[in-house]
Every structure is written in structure tokens, then in C-alpha cells.
């Protein structure tokens, strides 16, 4: 109980600390820099050619890779069969 009270007292003391701030001049200067950057941000070009890039990355790419692996495996098995005459 005592340690809880002590903890509350400590946290309350930290919470009661006064705020600090940069000088008005610094604050205004930083505000201007940020506003300027906010206004001049490059606009992002929207991809709208009918191809969903996300779908391409998520599904089509792995599907093509899987198909290639499958074809490779089939060819290996076919040649093994041909070579050993099973």
C-alpha cells in the first residue's frame, strides 16, 4: 500500500511538470517549412490501366512461379522415367 501511494505520488509529480516549448521564432520557422513541404508534396500518380498491381503481386506472380516449378518437376520425372525405363 505504501509503495502504491509512493508510486502515485511519483507519477503525479512527473505529470505536474510544466511544459517547455521552442521560441516563437523557431516555432514559426518550423511551421513555415512544414507548410511549404505540405503544399509541394509530389502528387502520387494513380495507376489505372486496368491492372491491379496488388493482385499481380499477390496472386499472378506466385501462380506463374508455381506453374514453372510444376512444369520443371514434371519434366524431371518424365526424363527419369525415360532414362530408367520404369
Amino acid at each position, binding site marked *: 500500500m505504501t509503495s502504491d501511494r509512493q508510486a502515485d505520488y*511519483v507519477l503525479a509529480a*512527473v505529470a505536474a*511538470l*510544466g511544459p*517547455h516549448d*521552442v521560441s516563437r521564432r523557431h516555432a514559426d520557422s*518550423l*511551421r513555415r*517549412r512544414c507548410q511549404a*513541404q505540405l503544399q509541394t508534396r509530389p502528387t502520387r500518380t494513380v495507376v489505372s490501366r486496368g491492372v491491379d498491381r496488388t493482385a499481380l503481386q499477390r496472386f499472378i506472380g506466385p501462380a506463374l512461379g508455381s506453374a514453372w516449378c510444376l512444369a520443371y518437376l514434371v519434366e524431371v520425372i518424365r526424363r527419369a522415367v525415360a532414362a530408367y525405363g520404369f
Partner: protein
Amino acid sequence: MTLMDGDDEGVLAARLRAGDSRAFDEAYDRYRPRVFSFLLRLSRSRTLAEDLLDETWLRLVAHARDLRPGTRLGPWLFTVARNLYWTYRRNSLVADACSPELTLWLSPPAWPSPFELAAASELERRVERALATLSPQYREALLLVAGEGLTPSDAAAICRIAPEAFRQRLSRARAALAEKLEQTGASLARQRGYGT
């Protein structure tokens, strides 16, 4: 001192994502002193805190359009500020051996009048000094939870540690600060002849 509630923060982040300059002003006025106070007490250097503050806000502007829906701006800003500080610490060869009270008290007073400045409690000064002697990990834990009103879970996410580990760290930080306060209180009493 508490953060905005989650909905307000989410709306503000959405407006920023849309490039609303007034939203930036609102966020800037609301969070600048908090982020700066956090950085100043964490770094114990006004110059460094100012540099990191600049970088924090410039990063917000640079990434405003990438803010995810539901992003809470306060924790986002404290995460960036905190990460910048620790990156600086890692990259810096300068030891973190500033005088505990040197730079902090060189900052312009946040109190509005000389009377209030004079009346700034001795306790507050003791807390500032004791806080400055703690390790940065302890300082940031106390500042995020007690100073900024973040939940331990949010603060843990900002510090990139598990919530349970953060709670332990916070508990140790509280104990360490309490011990420092007792020490400074006792030494102060001895200086003034209050001790037995």
C-alpha cells in the same frame, strides 16, 4: 496533460492525409510543446531537442499521405521522436554526460509571470533534477505514461517492447525516481539545517 481521444486523433490524421494545412496547424499547436518537452527531458539538451523536434515534424509532413486510416497522431509523433532520439544516441560518439540540470533550466520558462516562476515549487525542481539523473529508458517510460498520459500498452508499442516488460520497466523507473527524490529531499533538508 493528456492526449486527444482516439477519434479526434484519427480525424486529424485523416485530414492530414488529405493535405489539409489547417489540420497541420492544429496538430502542430497541440503537440509541439508536448513533443518538445518529451524530447528536452529525454535528451537533456535544448539544441538536440530542437533538432529532433524539427525532424519529427518534417517527417510527419513527408509521410502525411501515407498515414493509415485510424492512425493516432499523438503516439505516432512520440514514436518518431523517440526513435530519432535513440538513433541519435546510437550514432553519437558523445557520451550522455550532461549536467543533470544545466540545459533544462536554460530554456525559457513556460510559466507566464515572474511570480509564478518564483513560486514554481521546489518539488518541481527536485523532480526535474531527479528525472534527469535516471537512465533514458526510465525517463522515457515515466514521461510517456505520467507526462503524456499514454497507456502503458501504447507506451510499450512506442518503445517497441512487450507490454509486460514495459510495466516492469515503469515500475522500476518509479522506484528509482522515488529514491532519487528522497535523496534530494534529505540532502536539501540537511543543507537547510532541517535534518536532525
